[in-house]
């Protein structure tokens, strides 16, 4: 069992000892049945930390955001980018999938290992809750709070009832299929390592989609891409989508003092602003390809989609290819070569024609 007090105590100690400038953890939000990520900078704030099945967020995102912010601030003030200043170290609370994201970022040298502190928390026998599955289960009642309860969840509704549900009935697909519920890189470890949980086969979700014909698949994805409103939440929430300039943004070129008006006017627009089928496909496929061998299947892209597009499936297919064709498991070790920039002599190549 994960002991929340242990996480609080450790966070407190890290702040008191000045080992980190902030701990990014989860606190209760006021929005209902959802944890909120919080930068905790004072030791006494650590008492507000929570650990429950709504701690869905992949907080590795904030390691990236903080790095960007620091770099921007350093350049803005003419100082050298930080790194040695201990107070700039950041700690995050991270689940198994989140720690694999940390590993990918370390592989890509996004930040040095010494700049971060990982409070790794095991998901043990369960995982995070899926709001749509829970809503279906609650049949009209609204969830206010969800807590771990052995191998189930205890849900408190807005009208005050307590409903107990088996975790596997309302867990996110990615958690059911999870192969690494225990952190793979950490400075502190909380909860027990539970390996083969047997909740669902790995890649179970993509297999159902993968069975149809190409026409069926186009129909399936056409339906979903047409519904996309291009809020870019799937990109914004992804720790791997860290490019300074994204191919879908209207400004996706470095503008310098000597950039001419003509250069600006003639900038290449790869993907137009219109949320039409072709542009939406362009956006989603570019994003998927950029995540090949990098996506750790934290499922945040799919979770945040306001219209519930199964975004995760696109990345899962590529994750499956990496595993099935090249035996590559994403984010298992910070020293592991990155998927797209490495090869072995015996890599299969018969699919190249």
């Amino acid at each position, binding site marked *: 069992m994960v002991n929340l007090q242990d996480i609080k105590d450790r966070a407190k100690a890290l702040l008191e000892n000045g080992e980190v400038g902030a701990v990014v953890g989860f606190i209760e*939000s006021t929005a*209902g049945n959802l*944890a909120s990520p919080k930068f905790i900078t004072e030791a006494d704030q650590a008492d507000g930390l929570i650990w429950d099945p709504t701690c869905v967020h992949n907080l590795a995102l904030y390691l990236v955001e903080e790095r960007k912010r620091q770099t921007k601030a350093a350049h803005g003030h003419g100082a050298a980018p930080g790194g040695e200043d201990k107070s700039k170290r950041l700690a995050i609370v991270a689940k198994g999938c989140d720690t694999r994201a940390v590993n990918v970022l370390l592989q890509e040298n996004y930040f040095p290992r010494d700049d971060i502190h990982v409070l790794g928390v095991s998901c043990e026998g369960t995982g995070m809750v899926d709001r*749509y599955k829970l*809503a279906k289960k609650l049949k009209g009642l*609204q969830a206010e709070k969800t807590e771990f309860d052995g191998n189930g969840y205890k849900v408190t509704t807005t009208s005050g009832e307590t409903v107990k549900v088996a975790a596997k009935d309302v867990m996110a697909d990615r958690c059911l299929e999870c192969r690494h519920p225990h952190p793979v890189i950490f400075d502190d470890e909380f909860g027990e390592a539970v390996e083969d949980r047997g909740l669902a086969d790995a890649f179970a979700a993509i297999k159902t989609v993968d069975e149809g014909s190409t026409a069926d698949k186009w129909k399936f994805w056409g339906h979903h891409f047409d519904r996309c409103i291009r809020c870019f*939440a799937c990109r914004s929430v992804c720790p791997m989508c860290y490019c300074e300039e994204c191919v879908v943004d209207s400004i996706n070129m470095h503008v310098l003092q000597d950039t001419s008006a003509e250069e600006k006017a003639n900038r290449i627009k790869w993907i137009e602003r*219109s949320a039409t089928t072709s542009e939406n496909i362009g956006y989603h496929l570019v994003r998927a390809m950029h995540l090949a061998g990098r996506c750790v299947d934290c499922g945040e892209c799919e979770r945040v989609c306001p219209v519930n597009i199964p975004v995760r499936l696109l990345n899962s297919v590529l994750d499956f290819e990496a595993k099935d064709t090249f035996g590559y498991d994403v984010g298992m070790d910070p020293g592991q070569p990155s998927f797209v920039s490495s090869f072995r002599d015996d890599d299969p190549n018969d699919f190249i024609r």
Partner: protein
Amino acid sequence: MEKVLKKDNLRDWVIALSSYEVHAPAFEDEVWNFKQVEKPEDAALDHTNTVKPPKDFSFPQREVYCEFAQKKGEAPMVTETLPALAAPKVVFGVRPCDGRAGPRNDTVFSKEFDDIYYWMRRKKVAQVGLACNTPPSRNCFCTAVGGSPHSEDGLDVLMVDLGDSYLVKALTKVGEEIVKAGGKALGNASAADKKTAAKAKADAEKAPMREIVDIKTVPENLQKNFDSEVWGEMAQACIGCGICTFLCPTCHCFDINDEVTNVTPLRGQRVRTWDNCQFPDFTMHSSGHNPRNTLGARLRQRVCHKFLYFVQNHDTYQCVGCGRCISECPVGIDIVAVVNKVAHDVG
């Protein structure tokens, strides 16, 4: 005009509206959204609230302004395109908060001049509201911003759930036509029906909802606390996506781009698309400088637009309390909590 509609007769009313394009909330892909009713028997009004507001009917995410073409060596030709005047639409199941968004958006698109693209669509849309006897979401706060779960503002017809039937009240001339078109599907409302509806309204207005502290002083306090550090603190977890804005029934900012569809010979369209104050490029200058370069400043802009600037310019809040931006925010940023904290240091 007040009528009563047995729930089983909703289908007959929809059939009777065959000269209109009828839309109603449909539950697809696990979310509620407005959809054209294909089979009248599928029309049901058992939804919470739709994820996307009915704003799109008048202000779609993409609007083509004009088309352009140029043959080599010739002058460019521009062709005006106006929204195709299709059949008038009737939208069922509009929640009263979303109904109140209508007049606010109307003001934006007509105060200085009438935006023809907006109005050609808007005039063809009739909104049939469904009163909320209980708040559809735990993040509802219509009463905090001057609304009511039974508000008639901006609607053409209001329906009130009476159990086995609805009280149907026509509120505009268009609304009367729609109710009349229903013919025998609707019966006359009795005094008892009206009494039940009045009680439902009184109860609904008493139902607890999210509260904004002393809303009258919010605009001046936001102005006073413009430079508060709280904005940045409240936005610390913000991921900078566009959910709050794109799902908002009253957010109306747009961008205009020329989109080339063919290079030789040149062909393309000038399009208006929704824009989003939460995106960095919203305020990016062509020099590359960005005056609103932090998440806190962007959160401040969105909140101040709704609770300060709109009040200054149009004498009303530009928020109708639907709660979508709270419920759908990936990290739980809560506009009610932000307003209370910045304006009153509460929470």
